[in-house]
């Protein structure tokens, strides 16, 4: 496909010289973009990957050690635990957010009263920072003054809701806070998607006598594939960046129960002074992103090479 500039210069019959000049202005205007794209996302990322093959401790040094850092990384308990935590947390987070978001959107779609009120209430946590989220839930999960205490005082003595002090359960404490913060996002996207569904579909389903819930699940949901993909992408990005929430809510503890890869990297380039190992971990974080996003961007934007 022709670009706008090409079309224009042909239509108006401008000389090549003028086109060159315009291209030049556009190039100058795009300089910051080029600097950020190349400088930050190519050179910086490349530099990080390079450092992962060195023995750098506090400062970057180029004493190559091959894949040593990666071997060490995968034999480091803290890292392996972090990855396991991320997999548990990430998969549950995505499932819960999608299910809760979809349910809330469907129920809001039933021509209910106060729809705006409900919607505002479901989405407000998404406007708040993860630090705020973590601190509030930390307070509510406090063993002796929080929710656990309130329910026990009501007479249910064996009630337990203090996941953050239990290494087995702490990750689920983080999960609850994260789902609280993010499921409204899925609700908002899905509700917009539901509103976009052709009303003829509903009429047809009614005529065929298909129950409402089946229509939602087997007809409408598959039609909302783009919305699902959007939600999934946004949730995945959120999963990898879970750092703030963990730092505020548990600090990675108790023990290593809520350590995450994002925190592992930051810890190793700041307090732990082991840049080589930290960068090996960062490279491992980059890998899944490259494998999933890379081919998709290439197919959608580079190969097509036109305005989408």
């Amino acid at each position: 496909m022709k670009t706008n500039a090409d079309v224009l210069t042909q239509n108006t019959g401008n000389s090549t010289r003028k086109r060159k000049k315009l291209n030049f202005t556009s190039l100058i205007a795009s300089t910051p973009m080029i600097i950020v794209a190349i400088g930050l996302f190519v050179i910086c990322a490349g530099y990080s990957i390079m450092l992962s093959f060195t023995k750098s401790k506090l400062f970057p040094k180029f004493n190559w050690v091959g894949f040593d850092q990666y071997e060490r990384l995968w034999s480091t308990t803290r890292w392996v635990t972090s990855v396991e935590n991320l997999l548990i947390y990430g998969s549950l987070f995505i499932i819960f957010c999608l299910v809760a978001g979809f349910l809330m959107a469907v129920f809001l779609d039933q021509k209910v009263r106060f729809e705006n009120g409900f919607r505002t209430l479901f989405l407000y946590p998404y406007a708040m920072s993860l630090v705020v989220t973590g601190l509030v839930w930390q307070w509510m999960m406090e063993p002796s003054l929080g929710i656990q205490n309130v329910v026990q005082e009501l007479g249910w003595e064996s009630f337990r809701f203090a996941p953050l002090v239990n290494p087995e359960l702490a990750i689920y404490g983080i999960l609850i806070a994260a789902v609280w913060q993010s499921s409204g996002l899925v609700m908002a996207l899905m509700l917009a998607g539901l509103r976009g569904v052709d009303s003829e579909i509903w009429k047809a389903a009614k005529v065929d006598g298909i129950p409402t819930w089946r229509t939602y699940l087997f007809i409408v949901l598959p039609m909302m594939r783009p919305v699902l993909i959007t939600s999934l992408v946004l949730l995945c990005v959120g999963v990898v960046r879970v750092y703030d929430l963990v730092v505020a809510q548990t600090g990675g503890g108790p023990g290593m129960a809520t350590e995450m890869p994002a925190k592992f990297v930051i810890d190793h380039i700041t307090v732990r002074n082991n840049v080589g190992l930290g960068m090996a971990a960062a490279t491992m974080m980059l890998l899944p992103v490259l494998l999933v996003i890379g081919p998709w961007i290439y197919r959608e934007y580079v190969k097509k090479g036109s305005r989408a």
Partner: protein
Amino acid sequence: MAHDITPSGPKPSRLSVARIGVYGFLAMSAIFFAIPLYVMIVTSLKGMPEIRLGDLFALPNDPSFAAWVKAWAQACTGVSCNGIHEGFWNSVVITVPSVVFSIMLGAINGYALSFWRFKGANIVFAILLFGAFVPFQVVIYPLIIFLREVGLYGSLTGIVLVHMAFGMPIMTLLFRNYFSSLPEELFKAARVDGAGFWQIFFQIVMPLSVPVTVVAVILQTTGIWNDYLLGLIFAGHDNLPMTVQLNNIVTTTFGVREYNVNMAATMLTAIVPLAIYLISGKYFVRGIAAGAVKG
């Protein structure tokens, strides 16, 4: 057959079992979402003796803003005990220029990518798009080294530049998608009349871009205000944003933990994005969806 359906049978009663189920589910969800905000507010209005009684959900007997005052002006944020107000102003000083400049850059980038594609624009855009998904951790360390070399590490300029750079992918994408939807004829007509790159940008494209700019302002203001990691690493000791100071207040207290002060500080930090959310309404939702790349 499907085009002529008229309602038949009795009108469904207003309170069928299904209706009760719908409202029941929505009410339960509403409670789940409202509780943390409620707890935050009532805790911040109580005194410590009342909090120690353990009635988390009880309304304060004698509501007082003492904890808010202390959180604002006296709470200890690590070394100093001047409250969170310093962090508030730091966040303002960081957020305002970061938002303004990142939106300007995003608009120019989107405009150049939509109407004036230079050679290799596709590649640059693809890299930028990829940048939207890269975890900060991958590029943070080299960025620290670079900013240290040029003497901007731990300065206000440094953190603003960092926010501009990390905000660029999403801003560029947002404006590019919007500009792609503008009619090309408009642009062509301006070109025929001899308007140049900047003239078209300022006189034709930007006046049409008020809605998308509002979305961008909301997205960037809440995003930068809520940022923790970048502020912690790049802002430097004198410019620590509110989120970092808040975390310091809550996690580094010695002795008795003052939950009312903690919650007051938390509320103070949450108020700005919360206000933006309540005022902006549908624009906020559009901003969220802007992160969604059209495939």
